[in-house]
């Protein structure tokens, strides 16, 4: 695997303090699978370093939780620059999850109307791509998936629902996701899956991990 080509004018990303025991490294500002791969790789490399308690990859950023008694912010800045110069090792080999969906969500008709398609076309478009699992967050077991086909991109609902059932398959912006727990939510509900994505008795407690791939199919 070759190191990604340096873009013209690419500079070492800034490392911003996030308090006195965490730091935020922004690698880019786009929802982009290649950027996410860099972020997840950097997080994995940092996690193995002395003084790093946890490094969490996001869409295009890494948040580093560290022990300032072992490594200073300045030391982290040098470490990040060094790791980003190194050739990337293993390619990101995420698992592929095939997720069966009953496309009978409460918002399917409204989404179809909003984007000017039939519900059948919405289902076809949503279940066509193989999505990247970019990052966890929101609640345990939640994974942000994307990028969503452009024709389906809508802002979040104006009024979030106070209760969304677990297993709901939803979209918002460039993203899709599966609600792992009953929770409030502002995304558009396209359907539901019987697949359990929060696994409280496993470690880690989630089925789909950052870097994995997801293919929905109508059940």
């Amino acid at each position, binding site marked *: 695997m070759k190191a990604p080509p340096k873009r013209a004018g690419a500079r070492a990303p800034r490392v911003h303090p*996030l308090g006195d025991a965490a730091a935020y490294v922004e690698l880019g500002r786009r929802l982009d699978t290649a950027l996410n791969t860099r972020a997840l790789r950097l997080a994995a490399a940092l996690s193995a370093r002395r003084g790093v308690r946890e490094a*969490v990859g996001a869409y295009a950023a890494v948040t580093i939780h560290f022990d300032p008694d072992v490594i200073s912010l300045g030391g982290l800045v040098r470490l990040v620059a060094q790791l980003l110069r190194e050739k990337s090792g293993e390619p990101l080999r995420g698992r592929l999850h095939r997720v069966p969906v009953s496309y009978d969500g409460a918002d399917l008709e409204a989404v179809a109307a909003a984007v000017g398609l039939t519900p059948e076309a919405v289902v076809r478009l949503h279940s066509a791509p193989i999505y990247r699992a970019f990052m*966890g967050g929101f609640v345990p077991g939640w994974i942000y998936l994307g990028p969503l086909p452009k024709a389906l991109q809508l802002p979040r609902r104006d009024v979030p629902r106070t209760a969304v059932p677990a297993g709901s398959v939803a979209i918002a912006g460039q993203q899709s996701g599966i609600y792992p727990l009953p929770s409030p939510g502002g995304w558009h509900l396209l359907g539901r899956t019987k697949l359990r994505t929060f696994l409280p008795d496993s470690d880690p407690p989630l089925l789909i991990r*950052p870097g994995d791939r997801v293919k929905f199919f109508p059940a």
Partner: protein
Amino acid sequence: MSGAAFRVEAPGLLTTIQDLGRPRHRFAGVAPGGAMDRFAASAANLLAGNEEGAPLLEATVAGPVLVAEQPLRAAVAGGDFAVRLNGDEIPNWCSFDLRAGDKLDLRERRAGARCYLALAGGGFGADRWLGSAATYLLVGRGGFAGRPLRTGDVLEAAGAPAGSAPLESLAESLRPDYTHELTAIEGPQLRNLLPESRKRLFKQMFHVKHQADRMAYRLEAEPPLEMRPADLLSFGVAPGCVQVPPSGEPILLMADHQTAGGYPVVATVARASLPAAAQLLPGHEVGFRRVTVEAAVAEWRRLRLALETLRPS
């Protein structure tokens, strides 16, 4: 010897088993959790002769009434709660002994929001989830069956809970200053605030709103802070992060926070001020004093020195 330590006669408003948090599972959306006031939790445990991270009780606003089931050594630290043993008040930030049948009453709060009860012999017996005994209310895991205490619950001791070493206390001068002025470091997206709001962030006082729990505190800004429109991708956040949503009313993230956020983070409360943040309640006023990372680390080390005085030499 372990066995039953306390029977819960009254559970208090929100009493949970906590420790120093759940390591290395943020990537899975699992909050770090653990004690909101890490200093007081560590101090209570050290006073009781435990490791800092032993499972202990976090009481909120109105503490529990507990009856000792056997001879016990315990310690209380944190917010200013009246500590009553069989009706007589004993000092906070101290260890003490109980006989079987003694009644410990932590119902009355005078100041602050949270206090901690540690039990000698390695703390309370607790469910562990992903490397921590901390109660994670969102998913109902860890601590006492993943939930707050209820009347009639029986709390187990993890080890031999009676003490024979001399009783200990933490001198008043070594306790944290539970001020409402929190030290904070500039956040990565401070520049998203308009200049006037940027100045106000570190000058004005904010009102803690009713939505204030173990996940986050909503703060009221009068007038609301103003921002340039931001279209941020979500990223990992930390306890102490001050996010500003479009409403302009800041959100201060606490121990059980959502692990990722997409709102601008304009400041992060320093570790040394998180104990003071943990003692805030709805209705309190809170302000942020800007410090450098170096100053924040130094302040944390000063606070840690107080805990070092409690370690057996």
